[in-house]
């Protein structure tokens, strides 16, 4: 089972855009290893993973999850401020370019602080994905799609998007 770093898909425009949210909780052990000035901090690397999962689902949905969509490159990533327990993260990914070899995506990261109502833009992430069966000639991979496992399907079902995987 892959470790999911998004909780819920909230918006989806087929082939264009996908939005997911993540509630940051002290119950997550990883936060206890990242303490800055007495505050537990969500590691930026895991926020990039959250964006990669958001954008990866968006890219994967364009092929009904038949392609094995692998994060190949973090083209750009910036974060302006920290996120801590109690905050909510909002990932919005859009496809810039898509073909049979892979896709490039742009994404924004917003934060809503605990008890707050407004979202504030705190980061941007540009990613490159590879459709590995088409993009790595001569290398054989398992036939089944190991990228989009059952827990991804669970997220799709929760969001009412199970039809995307049909």
């Amino acid at each position, binding site marked *: 089972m892959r470790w999911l770093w998004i909780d819920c898909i909230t918006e989806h425009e087929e082939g264009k855009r996908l939005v997911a949210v993540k509630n940051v909780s002290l119950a997550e052990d990883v936060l206890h290893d990242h303490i800055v000035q007495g505050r537990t901090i969500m590691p930026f690397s895991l926020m990039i993973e959250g964006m990669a999962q958001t954008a990866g689902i968006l890219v994967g949905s364009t092929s009904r999850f038949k392609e094995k969509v692998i994060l190949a490159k973090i083209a750009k990533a910036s974060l302006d401020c920290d996120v801590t327990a109690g905050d909510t993260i909002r990932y919005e990914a859009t496809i810039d370019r898509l073909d049979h*070899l892979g896709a490039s995506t742009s994404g924004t990261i917003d934060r809503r602080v605990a008890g707050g109502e407004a979202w504030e833009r705190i980061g941007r992430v540009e990613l490159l994905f590879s459709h590995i069966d088409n993009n790595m000639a001569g290398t054989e991979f398992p036939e089944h799609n190991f990228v989009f496992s059952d827990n991804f399907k669970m997220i799709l079902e929760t969001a009412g998007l199970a039809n995307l995987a049909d």
Partner: protein
Amino acid sequence: MSRDAIFEKIQEVLDDALGVDEDEVTPAASLTADLGAESIDFLDIVFRIEKTFEFKISQGELFPENLTDNPDWVSDGNLTDTGLAMLKERMAHVDFASIEDGDRSISKIGDLITVDSLVNFVEIKLAG
């Protein structure tokens, strides 16, 4: 668009795709040997050139692909005369002179893709 203007835009593309400084992006610089490009970077560069210059690039049009699939093109790890002729016909933007009588190892083919060859490619595409 002038050749100088194309070159400046290619510098920006490679700066973004490879994280290199613009002064490293000289016309003769090889994408792999000098600028450190890896295989996935080529897909990134294709996407960025398409976006920058607003045209589509077909698979294998800018960079050689799947050469080893055809035994007529590659034998014992080296590009054959047939393979070289095929590349010269398909990839007019690349200067193959250095391998005409020299090392034709397939692993060296990528080194032939220089900044200048990208500028040539865009120039040919824009001339349409």
